[in-house]
């Protein structure tokens, strides 16, 4: 069977694809940062509890986990929306093929979310269950990450789609893609690195406010960051080796950008690591954010190169209607102002400051 004939016909866009690509990239970056903090910190907390290291770090993470879940979910909505606009014909298909797992995400996240609240609200009362509970939260989020990695890779693995004709019950996974596991591992290690750095960043803030005990915790965070990042160079290389030829050959349309951002992402990651090893938190954060953003772009170009034989977003038909986008951009700006206003309202409140 010619798998290409299975690719659904895409729908019409209201504005040129580039708008959606920008929105997708920006919002995915926002999601990636918060999601990495959530996943990384969950794993770190679990491993610390499991190894008997129940210190202030764990409690600090516990207090922030539910918030992180909330923003991870919220920040995940927007890129998923824009991804569906550009690549819906691929993503809906892969989602159907692995429907059971895909739909289970919401249930798993709900459990993890409530687990996070139980962990936060009862931290001192359930000491004996910290390992189990954080293990459950981290395990759940790892499962969600695995499902997401599967779907995002399955949607571009068109040759694997005909497996549907032998299994239409939504229980397929993208195991025929050899890059699945290194890709997943790359993401998880990246999350641990970001999680570690976020811990260091949190204590760096405290240190700047005069917390004398923060330094030790900065070290804890930085060690996680550095260790995970170093491992990820190896895993990243492994992942590179298993990418499709259309990506690795560096001959496709956009390959130059792909290579540029790959190099940029790698260099900034190295710089971030160097600063990390020196416990220079803020430079490490800046370079890591730069590296993450570069890698988001690498990821976008890799997807475009993978799908190039079948699909180009530039070929999508456009029937222009700009006013809805303008309305959105206005509301987006207004929403950001509102958030800023609320935070300012709280932080400048006399009772808080008294």
């Amino acid at each position: 069977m010619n798998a290409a004939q299975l690719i659904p016909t895409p729908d019409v866009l209201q504005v040129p694809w580039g708008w959606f690509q920008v929105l997708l990239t920006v919002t995915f970056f926002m999601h990636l940062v918060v999601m990495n903090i959530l996943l990384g910190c969950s794993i770190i907390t679990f491993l610390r509890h499991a190894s008997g290291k129940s210190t202030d770090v764990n409690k600090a993470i516990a207090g922030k986990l539910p918030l992180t879940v909330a923003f991870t979910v919220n920040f995940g909505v927007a890129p998923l929306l824009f991804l569906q606009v550009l690549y819906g014909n691929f993503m809906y298909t892969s989602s159907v093929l692995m429907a059971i797992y895909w739909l289970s995400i919401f249930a798993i996240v709900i459990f993890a979310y409530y687990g996070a609240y139980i962990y936060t609200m009862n931290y001192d009362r359930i000491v004996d269950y910290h390992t189990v509970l954080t293990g459950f939260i981290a395990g759940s989020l790892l499962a969600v990450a695995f499902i997401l990695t599967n779907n995002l890779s399955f949607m571009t693995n068109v040759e694997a789609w005909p497996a549907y004709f032998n299994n239409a019950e939504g229980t397929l996974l993208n195991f025929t893609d050899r890059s699945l596991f290194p890709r997943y591992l790359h993401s998880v290690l990246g999350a641990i690195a970001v999680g570690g750095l976020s811990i260091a960043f949190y204590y760096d803030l405290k240190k700047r406010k005069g917390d004398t005990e923060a330094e030790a915790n900065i070290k804890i965070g930085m060690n996680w960051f550095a260790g995970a990042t170093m491992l990820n160079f190896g895993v990243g290389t492994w992942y590179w080796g298993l990418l499709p030829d259309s990506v690795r050959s560096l001959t496709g349309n956009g390959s130059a950008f792909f290579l540029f951002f790959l190099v940029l992402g790698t260099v900034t990651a190295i710089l971030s690591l160097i600063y990390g090893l020196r416990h220079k938190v803020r430079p490490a954060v800046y370079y890591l954010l730069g590296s993450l953003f570069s890698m988001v772009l690498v990821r976008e170009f890799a997807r475009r190169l993978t799908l190039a034989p079948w699909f180009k977003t530039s070929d999508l038909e456009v029937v222009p209607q700009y006013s809805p986008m303008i309305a959105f951009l206005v509301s987006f700006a207004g929403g950001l102002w509102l958030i800023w206003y609320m935070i300012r309202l709280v932080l400048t409140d006399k009772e808080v400051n008294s």
Partner: protein
Amino acid sequence: MNYPVWLLDMFGGGTLIALIAVIHVYVSHFAVGGGLFLVVTEMKGLRENSPAILDYTKKHTRFFLLVSMVFGGLTGVAIWFTIALLSPAGTSSLIHTFVFAWATEWVFFLGEIVSLLLYYYYFNKISSRNHLILGWIYFGCAWVSLFVINGVIDYMLTPGEWLNDNNFWTGFFNPTFWPALFFRTFIALMIAGLFGFLTSVNIKDPEMRHKMTRYCGIWLMAPLVFLLASAVWYKAALPPAQQEMIFTTSPEMKIFLSGFIYLSPVLFAGGLIIAALRPQAVRRPMALFLFLLGLMYIGCFEFMREGGRRPYIIHEYMYSNSILKADLPEYQEKGVLQTAKWVKNRKITPDNRLAAGSELATLLCLPCHSTGGPLNDMLPIARRFTPEGFEAFLGSIGTANPYMPPFAGTKEEAVVLAEYLTTGLIPGLIPHAPVITPVTVAPKPFDPESSEYILLAGAAIGNYLSSTPEESGLDISFGAPLLRAQLIFRDVSPSLILEDATVSYKIQTGKGMLEGTMEATDAYFEAQLAEMPAPLTPFQPFFIAELQAEVEGKIVAVTQTKIGVSTEIGCRNCHGGRYNKEGRGGMTRVTAAGILASHDKRSNTNLSAEFAKGKTVVCSSCHADSSRGTEGKPGLLSLSAAIHGYHAGFISDTERDVCVLCHSSNENGASHSFDGIHKQLDLTCSNCHGILAEHATSLLKQEGENGQATKLLSYLQDKGEVATAEINPRIPWIMEPDCLTCHVEFQPPETDTAFNTWTEDGEELFHNRTGEAGVVLCSSCHGQPHSLYPAKNAYGKEIGALQPLQYQKNPFPIAADKGCAVCHTEDMEDEMHHPGSLATFRNRD
């Protein structure tokens, strides 16, 4: 047809989305109304300077956060995931139309999260003024989220002018946008009260508990009046066709409509009770009970709203099986298997019929139906049908079954799909044509030399149908057979003997011998049987009546005739059950129950309950039936008009002889009741009666302005070759196709279409009509309608022509081939019976 279909089996048919959506909708409305509840309750606490109320508000905020933000937020994502899995094409269309609406809703979702977290974490930590500002911001964000999503949801229900201009704003501010927004706002406030009960009944201080529970009661009850007013507005804003779909056409909607109507006062009363009664033993369970009622309440509404879209996902734009309305003709021309993308069996071959049928079912049926699940289960439907019945049914979807999309495939695909949905889904249901075991009946002896009389006899029609009411509990049978006989004294000028003669009959039935004497009229002897004779065993679709004429106490003539009575009535093709007479005939109670359930569902009757009590339901007791002489109830269609009119909408195939799905003349059936000369000449029912749609139209038009007839006629507009406006109305059983339409002046026909010219009254009916001499009944020489000589009955070649074989040793009409000697003792030269009566019989093998 762009995307693969997720095989959900029992969780299909909307079960999954119903489970997730109804719960989410409940919680998401709580997220809106509950936001206002929080800030207003906090204001109340501040106004009354009540730390207890503020404390309650804070605790309720925590509950609110955990329910609305965690559960509500995630189930909202889950709905998105679910609709994308169940209808990727529909979701893609929505996303591409309203991406910026959703993006805007995301912004306000973010605003909700930030404001709610700040509101919760800074309770009692910032000034009341600032805290209230956070609360109002939360409510504002939540309400704007509702505003945005409401536009998308109601676009699906009533896209309005968007269908013409494809403009975002036209679709967003669609015809039901505003009433729906008000409706949802008020229901959100009610739900705030219902959730409020859950926390207020657990306040420790009894007085505060009582106070806050009453307070929550106001939240529940006060918006109800406005809610109902906006519901009326909402209904009025719906286009008439969609109002009809929800409130009339879709029987499945009744339970939700009733639920919504009845739960409104129940919730109000519940609010009063919980506010008035103080004991915790009452209040706590009552709070939970009302909470669950609220879930049902909004569930009923959502089911109705979804029902109003039928058979579309996006009304008038995309059908529920994801086929665009504009693309339907292409699918019907090229076929689903050729047009859809995710298809393995592109061509139907003898080896892949079931597999192809399965793929068609996956693509066309499973988007809405489950297999074995609680909602829209296909299996009970499939069990009701035979393949032929299902094939006919597929032709009715989209018209007589307007809540389903029109069948999108070709004729061949309909056959294959019907096979799969019956024999493929239901184990053991493999239809096969019954083996006919011959029945030996020898014609009575006749000596042309010595016999002074001949006796000609037959039934008024050749094929009666019986629903075996004693066994089935449903009497939809024709009127009992009417026997006619003419005794003729053989002479140069034969005479009809009516006086000083008696004609008696004996019929072997399933309950013994039925005997009687026929009454003499001024033209024939006649016996109206009191009831349909009990069927014979083994299965036999006719009885043999033995007739005997006596003159002055002496037997002067004997003969036999077939009385065609079949229990092979095809209701089971679509209404379930199997035949109980050796699998060949005999309606079962299962079939009868299926028919009555459909009748109850469609016509708001309660016949199933009567049936369940053991009462035999007699159709003609309500619907006038000339064959039984009943007048029926005023305002109801005649039985013939109702039966044919209703079923013509479902059995819309205009090419096949679909009459055999119900009547006992199927080539593959057990009765072969249509066995006369017209059958030998390859004429079918439609040559005389029109195709089913035409036949039904003629009967429905006779009903005049009856609203039911008008509605049924609307499904049949110009379905046949004769335009609806040109079809002449007719009274069933009395105004029938006239033989002389084809046989003009008794001559060989120049047309094979007798439809639309009816006998004017009963006198012109074949069994009442005589030849030009006005003495001998047409039927005496030609046999019975549908079994005209030379009839070739499947059970034995003699059976259809017993009298011709008895009197003239050939199966042709009496006196054919100048066989005047049957009655006349010398050759005749004048065609006194009718022109052509001395001609040689034309249609020999």
